[in-house]
């Protein structure tokens, strides 16, 4: 203990502070811009609300009046697509995870241990590879720009992740519990729904939130597979960006709203993943 170590500590604090500022300033700028008047933007950058520029709610008013239809469409679509596809991902993923945990599979090309490879290969493939084909396929089957098509696409997109996440959870649940239920006369399906699923609830919640997060932020699929009815928020933001640049006060306001759901998920997931007892399922 002495000046050397406290100097080291000061350096560490300074460096960390630099990084935190770097992380925060762009977001600060966006929030501040959302409350500026067009005049404030075009006359050069201004930093402090009230001092450098007059606070205004113009962008929020625009959001609720002129651009309301597009905005509601975008946000509703994003919510519906993300929540329904995540639900399906977790549903199918949970049952499949149960299967992988309890049974032995041996199709020639796929065995229980190949799950990891499946996941990795799906992540490695750049989405442009599949989205071009999906565009043609969707077009042929009339699924282009439909909610159904997008929900299916996003479910497929997130299923491997959900499966991977849930597999460990289901492995950690002792068979005795199901066997006890079987003795009580419950069929397999009942055993899963009544006994196993409630115990995996934290894992299910985490898988749902993660899927929702990825579906909400997804862009390329939405860009190529929607153009009107089913446009998600990122796609609409992009079209606004080209159409009305640089009406940044407005786009900043939209951006802030767009990042609220993923931010909530981030906070919830941090609590989940950093508490390591959840990582081990039930023990």
């Amino acid at each position, binding site marked *: 203990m002495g000046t050397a170590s406290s100097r080291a500590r000061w350096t560490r604090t300074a460096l960390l502070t630099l990084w935190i500022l770097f992380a925060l300033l762009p977001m600060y700028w966006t929030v501040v811009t959302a409350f500026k008047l067009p005049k404030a933007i075009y006359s050069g950058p201004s930093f402090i609300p009230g001092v450098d520029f007059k606070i205004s709610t113009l962008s929020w008013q625009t959001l609720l009046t002129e651009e309301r239809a597009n905005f509601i469409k975008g946000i509703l679509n994003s919510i519906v697509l993300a929540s329904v596809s995540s639900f399906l991902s977790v549903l199918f*993923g949970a049952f499949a995870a149960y299967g992988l945990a309890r049974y032995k599979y041996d199709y020639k090309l796929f065995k229980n241990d190949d799950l990891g490879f499946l996941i990795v290969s799906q992540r490695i*493939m*750049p989405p442009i590879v599949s989205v071009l084909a999906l*565009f043609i396929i969707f077009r042929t089957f009339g699924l282009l720009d439909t909610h159904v098509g997008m929900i299916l696409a996003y479910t497929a997109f997130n299923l*491997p992740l959900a499966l991977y996440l849930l597999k460990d959870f289901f492995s950690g649940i002792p068979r005795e519990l199901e066997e006890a239920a079987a003795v009580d006369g419950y069929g397999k399906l009942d055993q899963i729904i009544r006994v196993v699923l409630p115990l995996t609830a934290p894992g299910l919640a985490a898988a749902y939130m993660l899927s929702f997060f990825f579906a909400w932020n997804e862009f390329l699929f939405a860009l190529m597979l929607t153009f009107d009815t089913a446009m998600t928020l990122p796609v609409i933001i992009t079209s606004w960006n080209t159409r009305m640049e640089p009406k940044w006060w407005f786009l*900043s306001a939209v951006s802030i709203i767009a990042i609220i759901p*993923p931010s909530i998920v981030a906070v919830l997931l941090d609590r989940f993943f950093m508490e390591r007892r959840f990582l081990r399922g039930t023990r």
Partner: protein
Amino acid sequence: MAIFSSALARRVIASAQRREIFKHLLIAPPLLFFGAFAIFPLLFTLWVSLNFWPVGGEHRFIALANYQHILSDFSFRTSLRNNILYPLIAVPLEYALGFGVALLINQMTRGQRLIRLIAFMPMMLTPIVVGFIWKMLFYPTYGPIDFVLWRLGLPKVDWITNASAAFASIVITDIWQWTPFIILIMLGGLRSLPVEPFESARVDGASSWRIFWDVTFPMLLPYSIAAIVLRSIEAFKLFDIVLLISGGGPGVSTATTTLIAYFTSFRTGNMGPAAAMSVLLLIIVIVFSMTFLRITQWVLAHSGRV
């Protein structure tokens, strides 16, 4: 007797068959989805890349003509170069910064949770929004970055029409967005380290520097590798940010292959060349992944893991 036992046998077999069906039903949806949305599109894209394929029109088999065409196309070649350069430049920087910040955060005693949340925020934001935010920041005249540079007495940088500056702007944005990913992984690794090696090292009087290089770094090698590999694989998919910040420009100097494939397919309506570009991109990513896997195995085998 015989009647009862055969009836019993039939019951047992029937329930075993039901179990078999049930078991297959469980795994069927994911396999079906994977087949329909990953395997089939992949094969289909491969087929499309060998055709002249106008949307809504007749397609014609032309073998490798698309590949010949794009390999001599300046936009595509530039995008390939960029697709390799972006990860090559950004990932090492993200790794160094991320590791450093993870070390700093790990040593915090109070308020770590809040700092962690702030540090992780950039990678949680919708990439399109990230692109828009940094486009605002880099914009000449209205954006704060040039303003701050000017105030600090440094020369203003033309982030839009200067190719190198535009490239740098994308790299900077990528670093802002994805360094948290590295922080996340390395922090997880740091928190899982046992205390004993560090205690004994300190008792032996080792300096912090030595401790880091001789204890921390080797023990975290698996995490480092995982972080770099995962990050690099994602970096090949760069698209959202480039579209928003530079649109691929100036010209096509900052474009990625995904971007060029997207533009080509939409501007010409012909899916063939775009499919060929995607296939080549996929091949590059696969080659890279396998190479990295090989290197990883070599490193882990030779590192004398603690």
